[in-house]
Structures are given as structure tokens and as C-alpha cells.
């Protein structure tokens, strides 16, 4: 007998969702049982431990960046994920917050306000600017709003770069507002409730507290009438309006709240960096924030956080060849494990790649001894590669480039083939990928970083087009 209010299908549906398979099943069931609240506090706890696990200022700085990114992604999520407004001027609010903090807490105008007051001014000013830049959204939607707001982002960079000699009619000397391309250096450290924040570690904790408050607040707002109003306006503005929702007012509210969060992050950024420069707030950053949000899943708080963690930390991990190599092989194996079924086939492919490499190595060694005498970048796994990977001692760059083109052709062919032919081609392609990696990409970490990062993003988005933690959406047939 089904429970009241449910029917047989539902009973089965609930059973189905509870029925996880595989090794991770108990963990996933346990994860489901814990509510979002405890999950979030567990996450915060882990984050709070992070500065105690490392002494490296660099790593803590990466942590600060991750939190800044998370805040920015959360703010953008209000506008883009919930209210559904494509706002490409978002990064200007971040910059505006940073510059506003700089104006009231540095030697630029010799104003040194208490931090609390400075932050209040920054948040209010950013929210007001958000209201102003949100006004076009009353009339423009989609692409049109996007290009209009992008224009604002560009204006901001132009203004900050050029407002160092502003000639006002009532002043004799030109006014230096932004310091031009040199920015505003020497910004005060923050001092909150009488506590000085001298080091990066202190800002990490400050950011963690701000982050926690923002997440909790946004979680509740999302569940409230305001959150429903935003989502309703995103789904169908006309229907929302006719269901008593003041759509235009809610759009402005979304812009203002997003801008306030961005401005707040900007002020902390300015204090951490003790300086602000126009190039900190260029369109590249905007794209990275969007990448974080879309990768994690627009409309989802946890998605925005996860996306920010990936986008802010992966390029840092890829900075050193050793880590990059580890990530490369780990990712390759993870993708194989995740996509190859049954496991026997996986075992055959992995075995075949190893065997293929050994054979190729021996053949090259016979035919052209210099072909295996090159040296790869050192590090943990270089020993393992010794008699497997062909490393030419000369013409490495040229051979690497040719191999790269072959690799791209191989991957394209893979997408077209099905069945056994695909598995057969997969073996040399995997080897070729490792070859290109060891010979070409690892030699130039600065380029590789971007390439590999892009590849990771593409792979993730292909697997989950709606983002890692996002929910698939349907389009309104209007």
C-alpha cells in the first residue's frame, strides 16, 4: 500500500534514487542524508584548517584568490543564474569596489577612514552603481543587454587608465583620480573591530567569514519570495509581472546585490594587494568568473563555489611541471576509468598503451638512437617514463609540433569512429598525447597551463553541459 499522496511510481522513483551502485555508494548515501547546512559547515571547517596545514604564503594567497573568486561567482550568480540577466559589466563593480576602497584608505587623497566605514561606503556605492547599470535591463534582454554592459566594463578600464590628469575648470592643477596605468599603491591594511590584519593569512580568515555570511544569506534569499521572484522573471518575465511580481524592480535588486558583493570583494582585494591597477579588472577576469559560474552550474550556490575553486586553483597547480604532469596523467586515467565499460576493455587499453610505448621505444632506439636520448623535465614520475617515452635529443620542437597536429587529427578521428576501430585508434592516440605532453607542452608551462586548463574546462562542460552541480533546464517555448 503506497503512502498517502504518493503512488507506485513515486515509491519506485525514491527507491531508484536511493539505490546507488559501485564502491562510492555508501559515501553517496551518507552525503544525501546530511543536509545542506551541515555539509556547508563541514566545508567551512576544512577551509578554516587550510592555513594551518601550510606555511607557504603562496598557497595561502591561492586560498585568498579562491575565496575572492567564490564571492565574485556568487555575486554573478544572482544576476546571471537567478535573475537570468547576461551582465558582462560585472567585473567593473569589482574594480569600482577596489578603487573606492583605495580612494578612502590611501595616500591618494590622504583619506584614511576606519575600515568599517570604508567598507560601508564601498558596498553602498557599488550597490548604487549596480542600480544605475541595471537600468538598461528594463528595456534590453539577452545579447543586447550583454553588449551594453560589456561596454560599461570597457569604459571602467579606460577611465581608470586615463583619469590621472583630469582637468577640472575650477582647479588649477589637473586632478589625479586613479593614478592612471600605475594605479594607486600604498593602500591601508584593514583594521576590523580594532584588530589589525597585517598578513595574507588574516585576510584569508576575513574572507572566509565574509564568504560564510554571504553564502548563508544568499541561500535564504534564494528560498524566499525574492529568490522565487528572480527565477520567475528569468523563466517568463511577462507571466511573472502578471503574477504580481515587479520584474523591473527585481532586476535592479539583482544588479545591486551582485554589485555590492563584487564591490565588497574588490575592497578586500585592494587591501590584500595594497594597491589597485587597471589591468586587475580587465575582461579576462570577467571571462574567468563566468567560466567558474558556468562550469559549476549557473543558478546553484554550491556550483558557483565549486567552479570558483577549480578556476582559481587549477591554473596554480599547473604552474609547476611536476604537478602538471601528475594532473595530466591522473586526468587521462580518470577519464578512461569514467568512460570505458566494461573494466576488461579498460585493462586491455591501458595494457596496450604500455606495450605500444615499449615497442615504439625499441623501434626508435634501433632506427635512430638519438631519438631516445633526449631528456624530459625531471620530477616524480620521470624515472617511470625512462624506457617508454621517446624523447628526441634533437629537433624536439619540430617533431613535437608535427605530433601535436597528428594528435589533433587522431582525436577528431576518434570522435567519428565507433566500436573496435575506436579502441584500436585510442591506443596510439593516447601514446601520442603523452608524447606531445612530454616533448612539447611540459617544456613550456606558461603555454601549457592555458591549454590544459582549457581542455579540462571543455571536457567537464561536455560531460555536464549544465555545469557540475547545476540542474538541467528546459527552454520556454515562447
Amino acid at each position, binding site marked *: 500500500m503506497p503512502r*498517502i*499522496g*504518493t*503512488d507506485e511510481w*513515486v515509491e519506485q*522513483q525514491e527507491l531508484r534514487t536511493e539505490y546507488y551502485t559501485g564502491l562510492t555508494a555508501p559515501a553517496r548515501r551518507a552525503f544525501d542524508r546530511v543536509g545542506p547546512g551541515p555539509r556547508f559547515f563541514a566545508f567551512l571547517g576544512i577551509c578554516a584548517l587550510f592555513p594551518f596545514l601550510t606555511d607557504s604564503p603562496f598557497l595561502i594567497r591561492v586560498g585568498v584568490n579562491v575565496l575572492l573568486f567564490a564571492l565574485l561567482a556568487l555575486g554573478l550568480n544572482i544576476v546571471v543564474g537567478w535573475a537570468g540577466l547576461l551582465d558582462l559589466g560585472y567585473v567593473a563593480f569589482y574594480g569600482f569596489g577596489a578603487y573606492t576602497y583605495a580612494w578612502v584608505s590611501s595616500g591618494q587623497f590622504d583619506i584614511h577612514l576606519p575600515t568599517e566605514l570604508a567598507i560601508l561606503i564601498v558596498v553602498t556605492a557599488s550597490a548604487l552603481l549596480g542600480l544605475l547599470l541595471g537600468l538598461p535591463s528594463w528595456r534590453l534582454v539577452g545579447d543586447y543587454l550583454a553588449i551594453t554592459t560589456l561596454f560599461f566594463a570597457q569604459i571602467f578600464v579606460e577611465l581608470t587608465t586615463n583619469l590621472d590628469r583630469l582637468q577640472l575648470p575650477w582647479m588649477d592643477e589637473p586632478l589625479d583620480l586613479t593614478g592612471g596605468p600605475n594605479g594607486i599603491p600604498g593602500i591601508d591594511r584593514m583594521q576590523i573591530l580594532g584588530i589589525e590584519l597585517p598578513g595574507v593569512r588574516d585576510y584569508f580568515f576575513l574572507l572566509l567569514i565574509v564568504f560564510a555570511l554571504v553564502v*548563508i*544569506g*544568499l541561500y*535564504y*534569499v534564494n*528560498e*524566499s*519570495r*525574492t*529568490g*522565487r*521572484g528572480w*527565477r*520567475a522573471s528569468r*523563466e*517568463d518575465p*511577462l*507571466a*511573472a*509581472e*502578471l*503574477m*504580481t*511580481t*515587479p*520584474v523591473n524592480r527585481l532586476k535592479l*535588486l539583482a544588479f545591486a*546585490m551582485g554589485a555590492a558583493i563584487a564591490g565588497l570583494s574588490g575592497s578586500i582585494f585592494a587591501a590584500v594587494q595594497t594597491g589597485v591597477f587597471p589591468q586587475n579588472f580587465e575582461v579576462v577576469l570577467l571571462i574567468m568568473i563566468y567560466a567558474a559560474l558556468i562550469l559549476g552550474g549557473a543558478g546553484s550556490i554550491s556550483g558557483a563555489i565549486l567552479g570558483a575553486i577549480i578556476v582559481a586553483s587549477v591554473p596554480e597547480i599547473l604552474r609547476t611541471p611536476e604537478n602538471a604532469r601528475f594532473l595530466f596523467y591522473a586526468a587521462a586515467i580518470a577519464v578512461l576509468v569514467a568512460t570505458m565499460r566494461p573494466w576488461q576493455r579498460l585493462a586491455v587499453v591501458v595494457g596496450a598503451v604500455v606495450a605500444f610505448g615499449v615497442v615504439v621505444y625499441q623501434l626508435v632506439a634501433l632506427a635512430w638512437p638519438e631519438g631516445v636520448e633526449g631528456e624530459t623535465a625531471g620530477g616524480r614520475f620521470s624515472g617511470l617514463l625512462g624506457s617508454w617515452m621517446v624523447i628526441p635529443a634533437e629537433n624536439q620542437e619540430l617533431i613535437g609540433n608535427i605530433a601535436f597536429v597528428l594528435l589533433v587529427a587522431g582525436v577528431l578521428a576518434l570522435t567519428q569512429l565507433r566500436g573496435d576501430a575506436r579502441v584500436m585508434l585510442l591506443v596510439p592516440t593516447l601514446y601520442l598525447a603523452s608524447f606531445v605532453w612530454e616533448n612539447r607542452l611540459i617544456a613550456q608551462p606558461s603555454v601549457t597551463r592555458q591549454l590544459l586548463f582549457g581542455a579540462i574546462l571543455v571536457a567537464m562542460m561536455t560531460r555536464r553541459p549544465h555545469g557540475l552541480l547545476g*540542474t538541467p*533546464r*528546459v527552454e*520556454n517555448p*515562447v
Partner: protein
Amino acid sequence: MAALLELREVSKSFGGLAVMSRLDLHLDEGEIVSVIGPNGAGKTTLFNLVTGIYRPDGGDILFDGKSIVGKEPHRIAQLGIARTFQTLRLFLNMTVKENVMAATYGNTKARVWQSALRTPFARREEREVDALAEEKLSFFGKRLIGYRMEQPAYSLSYANRRRLEIARATGTSPRVLLLDEPAAGMNPVETHEITELIGQLRDQGGYTILVIEHDMHVVEGISDRVVALDHGEKIAEGSFEQVATDARVVEAYLGAKAVREGKAAE
């Protein structure tokens, strides 16, 4: 008795095309009035004028004795005029319950900061909205409650989407319900059910209802009064029998030629 909703000589034209000319219409408290007319007669335009999507070029629209011309659509909805759409316009990616809860925006007061801090007031209001949504959804028997409340609206069948549109409209706590072809695309059983439901909405829900409908069985079954439109003008008004046999109505639907030939055949 003053009419709850009254249109006085309302006109509207797009460019040179007059889609509504000097229309008089009134809707008394507790009435069910059907609007019929061929395609392009101005029925949906009438709804768009009343709900504030269009602003009339001339004339006045009074709700509860006060003019609502020029008010923003969400204000008009908040005053107590709710509608459904001929082409469904649900919030597809929100849950069934959220669709109805979203319609309470104008009748709730919690500010953003109150929601963010979960103040007792915000929490109480949220509970009330939740209960209201369940109540409105339970109007449709078991079709929209239970597990379905937490499902996204896109998972609903077509007929259930139509029901949810009505439920969402009642979520605004209206006095007047404007239903735009509630039986469109429904099978005969569902159409019959909708006919009964519209009666129940009036009797139990206490709504005054203005309904656009093409299915004459539905119109006959529910209407206290029928208004026939053609080219934005009222061509007949009265009981179903009066309107259905009105020469101008028959002409509007079938054409003058058909009427002449029909007469000749008699």
C-alpha cells in the same frame, strides 16, 4: 449594484488597425461571463488591456469602482485581477509548488534583508505562503499535490500544466479570474472536468470569472452571460441561447454568404 470590473468605451489600435473600438463590458461580482468570437476578434486583446499589458487609447477600465488604466501590470494583478494564458506560460524550471508560491510576491512583504537573516516575520510569512500554495493546488484533487509539488513544472502533462496555470493565477488571491481558453487542447473528458471546475472556482473559491472559450459546450455549461466580439466590437450579449442564435454572431462565425445560403436552404 456596481460592477466589479467595468470597461467603458475602451478603444485600442495598432497603427491604423483598430483592434478594439468603444467596447463596453461589465462583470458583476460572482458572475461567470464568457467571451466568444472568431479568431482575431480581439478576445485576448481584451485580456491584455484589462491586465495592463496594453494601455487603451481611449475609454476607461474600472476595477471595484476605481480606474486601473495606466497602472503597471503587477499592480493590477496585486489589486485582484489574475489571468491564465492561451499559450501556456508557466515557470517551467521551477517546481509546481514554487509556481504558485511565486504568484504570492505582491501579497507578501518580507524585505530581502529579512529573508537573508530569516527573521521570525520572514519565516512566518514563508510558512503562510507554503500553506497557501498547497491549498490552491489541492483545488485540483490529487493531480497537483503529493510528490508532484516538488517536481519541476516541465515534468507535468499538458492538461496538468493547464491546471497549474489556473492554480498559479489563484495564488495571487484574486477577485477576478481571466481564463484564456482553459479547455484548449484538452480531450473530451478533461474538457468536461474543466467545465465543472470553473463552476467550482466560482462557488467554492468565490472568484468572479471572465473566460475566453471556443468550445461551445463549455460556454453553454458555465456561462451566466455570453459576450460575442468581432473585429473588436461587441456584436451580441445575453444568455447563451440569445447569443448563439443571434444573426450577427452566426454571420461572424460562418460568413454572410453562408447565412444567406443557410436561410435559402430552410
